[in-house]
């Protein structure tokens, strides 16, 4: 009676609930009372059910990417995780490569004088689950090897292949404006669960009767299922072909847990909600226009599909209830169903669970308002942490240098016999010449924040020139392999045209699309730059602000006119920047050097360059001088 046992946990699935108990669809049950609450309950149930699926097939589903802040909700989920009948290994982000991949156990080796190997966590996790707390902070070296292990089903160590198949549970606590889990890993984890909007009260209401029977049913999926899955993924703008495959595995596992040998609608609906919908990059209706704009960080859900200002048939976000009605064709053996009908059902199921801001993101297109949710693309963290460790070098500890014990022992090891250590019980003989110290990356990456004034006053005739200057800056930042972040300001407020990126092509694209005209919301731009800088600094990136403006602010933070107020606010934020001590460069776009601009530049603590005298050489020099620690 597997199916019956599962029913409570399967409850979130509207189709399942309806079919099994004859009750109306869960989501539309409370007429208008609290659809959000019902939605949260459904989410919570899906999250619990994801655990059951994972328990059944840890490896083939890849794992779970859980986005949730620390709190009672996550704790409850983690308890359920701990209750799984599977070995669970927690790996801290500070794990070193020997422990991660497996390697020499130096302490034991030194003690016994014989080679002692330790199995890596990736190997030990075989057949179970690997849990990564604060997964978003994991170093690329770890996430990359983890992705590789997932791909190959084992660890390759010095030419020796050790099979290891496990599921990953990545706990991601990143805030909206922070870089989430590494994209390469996101891509490979099948189930994306977002509990950020689930209130603790939901838990109390939701009965969590989770069962962990391992289903043995062999589930087969017909061609129509495959077609529907692929079609749905395509309709949602999901490019990666890993995703439909993962969705298929999830659907099969879901069916297996319900004791079915075929994939039914509710299995597909579940796969849609947990695998496809969170990865959606476009609103399903308007697929054709969007196909070409797939952009870089394809696995980063937070990045907007760039450019297109037109909203694909801006369908108002469908109420969940609306979709359930479409799900009605439900003869259990799905092999006979047309893939089109299945796909329509799945698109509807996915639409109910699309990221709430997707529509908004599509509408705002290139110009996401106050782009907090943009944050940084995941890869931006690559190489961005201050003091990334480098291989140790010989040297004396002290004066800021820390002793690298392992490397020191390593250096001492071959000389033990020479130094007369014959008995393994004797302590290892280490001399000063063996000392190795930690080294850290000297160069901290920097990011140019370009704030470009496109207002009527400064720009109309000089905008092209300003863009030219920006081009020069971009070329130089390319040479330095800096990243850039572009803010445009005109009209009522400043906009983040492009969150931090290393793709200068995108930066240029963002700029060329910027029209001119309107007021000068300088304060808003400086404020936005300030926020961006704080965020960059948290990632260990030093921000450099480059303002291209004549400094004649005339729009206040509230977006209202008023020169005096606007100027005062601009000066306030300029001083705020100056107080942080970050570098800055002010390029005055006025035809004649402006005293206001000079004054603002001074308050910013920025170098001042009037544009008429701007030459590429001078600009390069100015930028170089502006850099901290040149």
């Amino acid at each position, binding site marked *: 009676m597997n199916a019956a046992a599962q029913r409570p946990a399967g409850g979130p699935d509207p189709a399942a609930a309806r079919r099994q108990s004859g009750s109306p669809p869960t989501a539309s049950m409370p007429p208008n009372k609290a659809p959000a609450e019902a939605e949260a309950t459904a989410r919570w149930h899906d999250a619990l059910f994801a655990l059951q699926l994972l328990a059944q097939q840890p490896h083939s589903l890849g794992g779970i990417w859980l986005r949730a802040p620390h709190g009672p909700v996550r704790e409850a989920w983690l308890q359920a995780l701990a209750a799984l009948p599977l070995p669970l290994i927690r790996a801290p982000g500070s794990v070193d490569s020997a422990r991660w991949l497996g390697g020499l156990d130096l302490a034991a080796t030194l003690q016994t004088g014989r080679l002692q190997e330790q199995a890596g966590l990736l190997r030990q996790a075989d057949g179970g689950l690997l849990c990564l707390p604060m997964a978003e902070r994991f170093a690329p070296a770890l996430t990359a090897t983890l992705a590789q292990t997932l791909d190959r089903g084992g660890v390759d160590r010095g030419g020796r292949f050790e099979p290891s198949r496990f599921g990953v549970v990545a706990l991601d606590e990143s805030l909206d404006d922070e870089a989430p889990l590494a994209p390469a890993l996101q891509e490979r984890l099948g189930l994306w669960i977002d509990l950020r909007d689930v209130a603790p009260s939901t838990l109390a209401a939701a009965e969590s009767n989770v069962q962990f029977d391992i289903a043995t049913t062999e589930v087969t999926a017909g061609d129509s299922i495959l077609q529907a899955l692929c079609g749905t993924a395509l309709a949602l703008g999901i*490019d990666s072909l890993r995703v439909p495959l993962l969705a298929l595995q999830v659907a099969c596992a879901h069916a297996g847990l319900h004791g079915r040998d075929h994939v039914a609608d509710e299995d597909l609906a579940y796969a849609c909600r947990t695998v496809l919908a969170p990865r959606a990059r476009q609103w399903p209706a308007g697929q054709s226009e969007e196909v070409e704009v797939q952009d870089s960080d394809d696995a980063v859900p937070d990045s907007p599909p760039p450019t297109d200002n037109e909203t694909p048939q801006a369908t108002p976000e469908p109420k969940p209830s609306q979709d359930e009605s479409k799900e009605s064709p439900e003869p259990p053996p799905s092999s006979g169903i047309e893939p089109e009908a299945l796909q329509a059902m799945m698109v509807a199921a996915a639409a109910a669970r699309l990221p709430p801001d997707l529509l908004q993101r599509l509408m705002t297109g290139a110009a996401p308002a106050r782009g907090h949710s943009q944050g940084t693309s995941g890869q931006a963290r690559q190489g961005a942490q201050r003091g990334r460790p480098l291989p140790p070098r010989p040297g004396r500890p002290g004066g800021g240098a820390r002793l690298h014990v392992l490397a020191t022992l390593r250096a001492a090891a071959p000389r033990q016999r020479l130094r007369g250590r014959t008995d393994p019980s004797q302590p290892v003989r280490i001399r000063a010449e063996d000392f190795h110290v930690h080294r850290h990356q000297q160069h901290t990456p920097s990011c140019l924040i370009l704030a470009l004034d496109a207002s009527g006053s400064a720009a109309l005739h000089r905008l092209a020139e300003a863009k030219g200057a920006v081009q020069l800056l971009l070329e130089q930042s390319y040479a330095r392999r800096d990243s850039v972040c572009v803010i445009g300001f005109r009209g009522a407020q400043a906009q983040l045209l492009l969150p931090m990126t290393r793709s200068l092509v995108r930066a240029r694209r963002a700029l060329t699309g910027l029209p001119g005209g309107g007021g000068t919301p300088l304060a808003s731009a400086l404020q936005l730059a300030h926020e961006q800088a704080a965020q960059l600094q948290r990632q260990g990136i030093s921000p450099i602000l480059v303002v291209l403006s004549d400094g004649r602010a005339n729009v206040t933070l509230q977006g209202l006119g008023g020169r005096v107020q606007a100027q005062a606010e601009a000066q306030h934020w300029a001083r705020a920047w100056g107080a942080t001590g970050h570098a800055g460069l002010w390029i005055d776009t006025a035809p004649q050097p402006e005293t206001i601009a000079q004054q603002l530049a001074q308050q910013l603590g920025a170098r001042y360059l009037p544009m008429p005298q701007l030459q590429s050489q001078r600009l390069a020099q100015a930028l170089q001088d502006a850099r901290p620690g040149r």
Partner: protein
Amino acid sequence: MALTFPFAAIVGQDDMTLAIQVVAVDPSIGGVLVLGDRGTGKSTAVRALADLLPPIDVVSGCAYRCDPQRPAGLCERCQPADGTATTKGKKTPKLPVESRPVAVVDLPLGATEDRVVGALDLEKALSQGIKSFAPGLLAQAHRGFLYIDEVNLLEDHLVDLLIDVAASGENLVEREGLSLRHPARFVLVGSGNPEEGELRPQLLDRFGLAVQVRTPQDLALRVEVVRRRDAFERNAQAFRAQWQDANQALQQRIVKARKRLAAVQTSDDLLMLCARLCQQLGTDGLRAELTLLRATRALAALQGHKEVTAEHLRTMAPLALRHRLRRNPLDDADAGVRVERSLQDVLAAA
């Protein structure tokens, strides 16, 4: 070794599979750079590469997989002790030979220098007090392929190292009290998404061919990809058995092409075409011409032709030249299109 997805079962991605086969025919073309989004089958194709290649003869027990046929490139261990034989051509005691599959080595992002270059062999050091070298990934990749996923995100110090080794074919180790060199000739295969970060031009130049991949937007094709992958995941052994013949046929094709390669003729006209094309595109140096020439020749051999034709050139030019155009880093025009355009001009003029 883990079972890999059979190369013959890869659906679509013609440019990528062609480039890989061409490089398999003539490794001297250099590596392949695959640019594109995640989930397009880049890694699958590269890891399946081993299927295409017949096993190679190596000196038995040699950690560097020395080639017994090339005495000049032997590692220190395999070289005859007196060092005379190689130069004078005298009969040396025959080196024992064994057959091993070609290595396809994965270099993960964030690998340490130790792992890539090799390091002191701690086992020997500790148990016997002997200072010896434990070869790293570069040694493993000798005479095989070195695959770097997300190559554009590779740290600069590793990039420097690779650029050097890829050019010299030799890994110089001067660290941890070790001082040695060993052969490391490999074909570099990289993949990545250019929008996440640019590649250094020097590294770009080390790749012979560059292909741009996109996921197929055709539903039937996508379904087929997922279907095969699913079948593979369910039962890898059975799936491989099913594709065994097709894989064998592919391998035979490569082997035959390799034999035919030396006999493929290239007319002077075609050489002129190559040169004119590169001139018009303004590629730096002569490497572009050379690579283009080798690639077209390998393609002709692969297709069983005796002579290189303009058609081969047409196929290979975008792959061989796309990444070599001197370009403005801010220019986002597709380089492939520029190559095609110049190609048409040149062919029309001829």
